[in-house]
């Protein structure tokens, strides 16, 4: 259609300002972004938001069910300060099965900015946590229950966010960087360099992912330090992720290379590095941003899956996947279904990232009014 009318804008909007404008018109993308930011903040300041240290065990309360927050007690009285009920444990004398019942007589009121186990952040020792109960009176709060050692799952969940997100950002960041450098060089310099690089890329793409992950992870020393395993794990994921991306970037570079503005830059005598850095790379950024937002949830899923199988993140590090590893058997699942909580975290994160990615994908082409 011959639609070229455009209302005269007073101020010059840069490309990214246009993208932002378009992005914020999509409610689902904005909600997704909001959730993503919340999750990232929760991950970074995980110890502050969690009432317990993830390693603290409570031997008296293993497989404890989740406690719910209340504002009204059973008589219907309103309490401005939320509270949880204590839980009594009873054993059925016939089946030896434990059953848990909330005890209306035990009210544990929540206190804010309490002092608890110390935590470190950027080298600073802190001991304030957002909320907690009065532990001196023997009160406890397990919002998502406890695991087999009596550790607070809510706190573990928050700490796990950290490792899961760190892994995702590390892998996507490194793979992205390699992909960009290889893709741009391959696309622009073409010739033999392109030929060789593309054969390597094809070689990597031809690997069946999953068996290779498992085989490579099996090579890692069993008793290695958890941090080392984490880094090696990330390296393996990077190794298999950059190839596809470098292909996409190469394709983009080839199409941009033949555009007239690159020709025009050649015509004024611009050098190759200048053409690459000033004309070609900036015009691939939109694609890079979209790729990153789509890859992050992908890596989160893969990490969770491999850690669930027990070949990913190792204790004492906690990730969502490694938490799920604890309920591999049906027995513990049956006993403590709340240990599935990380699944909710994974689903929410993946959906939020995808919503954000969809919004970005539509927004990075701000010149078409769709």
């Amino acid at each position, binding site marked *: *259609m*011959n*639609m*070229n*009318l*455009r*209302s005269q*804008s007073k101020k*010059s*909007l*840069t*490309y990214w300002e*246009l993208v932002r*404008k*378009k992005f914020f*018109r999509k409610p689902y993308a904005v909600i997704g972004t909001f959730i993503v930011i919340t999750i990232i903040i929760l991950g970074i300041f995980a110890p502050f938001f969690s009432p317990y240290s993830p390693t603290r065990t409570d031997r008296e309360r293993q497989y404890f069910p989740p406690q719910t927050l209340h504002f009204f007690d059973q008589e219907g009285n309103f309490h401005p300060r939320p509270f949880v009920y204590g839980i009594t444990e009873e054993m059925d004398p016939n089946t030896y099965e434990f059953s848990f019942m909330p005890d209306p007589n035990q009210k544990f009121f929540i206190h804010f900015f309490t002092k608890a186990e110390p935590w470190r952040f950027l080298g600073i020792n802190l001991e304030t946590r957002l909320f907690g109960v009065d532990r001196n009176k023997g009160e406890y709060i397990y919002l998502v229950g406890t695991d087999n050692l009596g550790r607070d799952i809510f706190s573990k969940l928050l700490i796990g966010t950290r490792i899961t997100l760190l892994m995702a950002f590390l892998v996507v960041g490194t793979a992205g960087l390699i992909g960009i450098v290889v893709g741009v060089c391959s696309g622009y310099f073409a010739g033999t360099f392109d030929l060789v690089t593309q054969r390597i890329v094809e070689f990597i793409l031809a690997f069946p992912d999953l068996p290779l992950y498992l085989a490579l992870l099996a090579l890692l020393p069993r008793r290695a330090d958890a941090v080392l395993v984490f880094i090696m794990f990330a390296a393996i994921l990077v190794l298999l992720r950059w190839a596809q991306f470098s292909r996409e970037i190469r394709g983009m570079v080839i199409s941009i290379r033949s*555009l*007239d*503005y690159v*020709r*025009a*830059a*050649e*015509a*004024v*005598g*611009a*050098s190759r590095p*200048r053409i690459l850095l*000033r*004309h070609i790379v*900036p*015009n691939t950024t939109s694609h890079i941003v979209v790729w990153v937002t789509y890859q992050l949830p992908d890596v989160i899923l893969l990490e969770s899956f491999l850690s669930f199988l027990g070949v990913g993140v190792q204790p004492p590090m906690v990730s969502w996947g490694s938490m799920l590893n604890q309920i591999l058997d049906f027995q513990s699942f049956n006993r403590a279904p709340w240990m599935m909580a990380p699944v909710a975290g994974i689903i929410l994160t993946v959906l939020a990232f995808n919503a954000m990615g969809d919004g970005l994908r539509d927004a990075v082409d*701000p*010149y078409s*009014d769709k």
Partner: protein
Amino acid sequence: MSTDSQQILLTARDIEVGFPIIEGFVQAVRGVSFDIIQGETLALVGESGSGKSVTARALMGMLSERAVVGKNASVEFSGQQLIGLPEERLQKMRGSAISMIFQEPMTSLNPIYTVGSQIVESILAHQKMPKKEARLKALRLLQEVQIPRPEARLDQYPHQLSGGQRQRVMIALAIANEPKLLIADEPTTALDVTIQAQILRLIKDLQFKYGMSVLLITHDLNVVRKTSEQICVMRNGEIVERGFTEDVFTNPQHPYTKHLIQSEPKGSPPPLQSEPANSLQGNKVRVVYKIRHGSFFNRKTEDLVAVNDVSIKVRQSESVGVVGESGSGKTTLGLALIRLISSQGGEIRFGDRRIDNVERKDLRDLRTSVQVVFQDPFSSLNPRMIVRQIIAEGLVVNNIGNSDADRDEMVRIALKDVQMEPDVMDRFPHEFSGGQRQRIAIARAMVMKPKFVLLDEPTSALDLSIQAQIIDLLKDLRDKHKLSYLFISHDLKVIKALCHNVLVMQHGNVVEAGPTEQVLVNPQKEYTKALVNAAFEVVSNRSQSTSLNFN
């Protein structure tokens, strides 16, 4: 404008269409009304963005979902109100009572079905008849649109046909169910000039035969003059002038119409000095592309000769035109002459220096004195740079100017040269119209103070009135800076207005060369004659007394 004795087929009243866009709301069509008379052609003329296509789509209910149609809009077709009709009813009418042909025949035919099956499908969608009979009818239709060897074409796919043939197939599809109204949206814009004339003739013949009405949408005044009885000139979503075609052309009332009609390029280049020195010279330039085909073990490379031993000479202050249809190798020749692509034979000289065998890095000093302006101003400006950066790039990379302030001043002068305000320097390309972008692209070339400029179809992506402005600008710049131009174009009118000498190319070879007046007035070769006829005949066989007249 309607005449009482004639029957009105379609009455459109107060058509209003708007679109929500990123920066607010655009009113594309504002209160357009017109009548289409049985068996006649009404032309909607206007430049891009004038709302002519949107108007036509509104008639057929084919607007995008976001479009907002005004409440008072009314379209009466043979006594039936079309606005507000349910989608299924409209679908029945489309392709039978009203049908449409589009600008780009490649994208409006489905590439995975044969031509025959697409026509048959269209026939069966609206008429009940056995498939065999429909196929026979499809064959008749192809014969009717004068496609050579119609039996074979039935089973061919769209990509096997040329652009002109595809447009013929589109026309066959459109008339398959003998519509009362044919809407032709820029039906010849994507085609080469010689094909354009044939397609227009065909539409006219078919219209006469079937007694159809035609709503012709175009920006090309020549097309209008040749084909339509009545004309509506649109601008900014409104009709600014309407009337019988001949009246509007001979006696335009609205200033915009006058402006449009005067925008046809005219005039001729100023005479050269007696013996100017050579600027750029190519001697038997040859460009060959290697095409690989065949299987992996049986790889064949074939040479495609894009430019076949072409010799050309551009002298100081001289403009040389290169004319040809798409695929004739004219752009390749231009790019090879300024060493943006490499040539495989012959000799290229700039001044006294031979440049065809020089390494890329030794070409730097050449880059400042030889510049280029490309056809499409939408792809020739980097969308991530502001105008200042775009224009100053050549200065920066060649270390011209001592400081940023110095260079800013040069950019300002270049912008003034192309008649743009200096305050556009901090804006991005997407904020400008096509014509403004092309000015920026010209400023980018001019800031380098070149001696020679390659102009690769610099006006063909632009509207007619903008075209005229750009051509005037190029003329002024040439005279002011004593520039040499190599002007590549398929538009003979532009060449005639601007160039001293002309080179006609076909399939990589020079068909005819010589002084412009001589070649265009008295062409010697058949091919040149066809080109000249297609470009100028439209007007010359009508009235003798207009400014458009070639002779």
